[in-house]
């Protein structure tokens, strides 16, 4: 899409790696990563999906949590670029959504209706396994990824896989499975918290998410912890409302 300067690239990777050092929140980290990926290639939206052990793709994080966008990520459990990237282990790049209705009859028209022109998906690989995909949507006509963009986005996707391993030291396959299930459940907690905050404060769920994320950032707390407190601790919810 745009030429990326080596300085900018280096800065982004250092920023991303820096987040990985200490105790970090996986979902928040993945959100930062999708946001960086989007700004790096000037994409309209970027999302990250993880495959659960039953092969379903679950939305984990996005550069934007808009309801219609989350649906677009999530409905790829049946068809779409992410499912293809997960199944083949290879990136899907520069697919023109206007011409993809035959390939993805449900997904392509909805993505096009949401204002996107192109779509790309990069496999999230861990050793021999593909455990998810990074999904990139382009908004402008001819907004294709260049040959130079492709390895950069794949590298950012590989960093996401490292993050999954890093959150808790992975000794064996069992621990990875534990980790994945834990991450998928944390994502559910965030959705529950959106509902709680939306209902308590008279907001839409999208607005509620912005409130929760802003509160977590201002108080230097993990997004997942704040979300959990919102659904389990009425006093924490009251503090958020008062803030």
């Amino acid at each position, binding site marked *: 899409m745009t030429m990326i300067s080596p300085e900018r690239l280096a800065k982004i990777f250092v920023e991303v790696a820096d987040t990985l050092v200490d105790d970090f929140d996986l979902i928040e980290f993945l959100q930062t990563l999708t946001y960086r990926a989007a700004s790096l290639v000037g994409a309209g939206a970027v999302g990250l999906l993880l495959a659960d052990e039953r092969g379903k793709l679950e939305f984990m994080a996005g550069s934007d949590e808009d309801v219609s966008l989350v*649906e677009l*990520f999530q409905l790829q459990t049946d068809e779409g670029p992410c499912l293809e990237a997960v199944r083949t282990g290879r990136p899907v790049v520069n697919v023109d959504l206007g011409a993809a209705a035959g390939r993805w009859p449900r997904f392509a028209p909805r993505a096009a209706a949401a204002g996107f022109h192109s779509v790309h998906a990069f496999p999230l690989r861990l050793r021999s396994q593909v455990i998810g995909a990074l999904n990139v949507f382009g908004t402008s006509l001819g907004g294709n990824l260049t040959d130079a963009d492709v390895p950069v986005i794949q590298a950012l996707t590989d960093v996401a896989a490292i993050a999954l391993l890093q959150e808790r030291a992975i000794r*064996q396959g069992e621990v990875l499975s534990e980790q994945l*299930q834990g991450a998928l459940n944390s994502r559910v907690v965030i959705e*529950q918290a*959106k509902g*709680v905050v*939306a209902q308590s404060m008279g907001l839409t769920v999208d607005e509620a998410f912005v409130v929760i994320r802003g509160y977590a950032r201002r108080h230097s707390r993990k997004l997942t912890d704040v979300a959990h407190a919102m*659904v389990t601790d009425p006093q924490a919810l009251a503090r958020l409302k008062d803030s």
Partner: protein
Amino acid sequence: MEDRSAFIADLITRQAAVHGGRPGFLRGVCAAAAEVLSASGAGVSVMTDDGTRGETAASDPASEHIEELQFILGEGPCMDAFASRRPVLIPDLGDPSTDAGGRWPFYTPAASAGGLRAVFAFPLQIGAARLGVLDVFRDRTGPLTAGEFADALTVADVTVAALLDRHVQARDSRVREIDNNDYADGHRAELFQAQGMVMVQLGVSLTEAMARIRAHAYAQERRLADVARDIVARRLHFDTEKP
């Protein structure tokens, strides 16, 4: 996947019919889990959110003993799975690299003495709503296969739905109808958002909120995804109607 879920639900119901009533249902879960997972036994403990143990069941007396053991000793994979909200998978209790002996210094030798070689604990939960734990026991070492792991998650899901539905049989075709398709449309996140909203609307627990949403779906013969969508869009409120 849908077929597998139906198969497991049928198996639980058949096993449960042997014993009858709600205790029979939990026994059925344990027997079905032991059967599909090639386990020597299984146990289920229903727990309240603070970790207090409620109903419990096991597939056989030896498994009942192992299930009891962790509550007597106050430690074990079941408690860790409940606390961490993720599965705890121990394919070899004697493997020094897994260090089960260090993690559970009282449970590990006691369970090993009872013939236990491998244990896999699965939280019964939806996000922050916790209902208990399913424990799978084996008298031989070795990991669950990918298919067995997926089946164990399905057993856990079917059990969670049945615990929420109380009076509806797991076999009941209505269960499959209301659960049908909540992935395909990309609306899965909305169900959890709706759960958070209903929790606030009714002033009930997160678990109870999901039970009410499901009860409403049964009563109105609607899909859960559609009910959730109406709640999130504020076309449906639970504070103004009887569930």
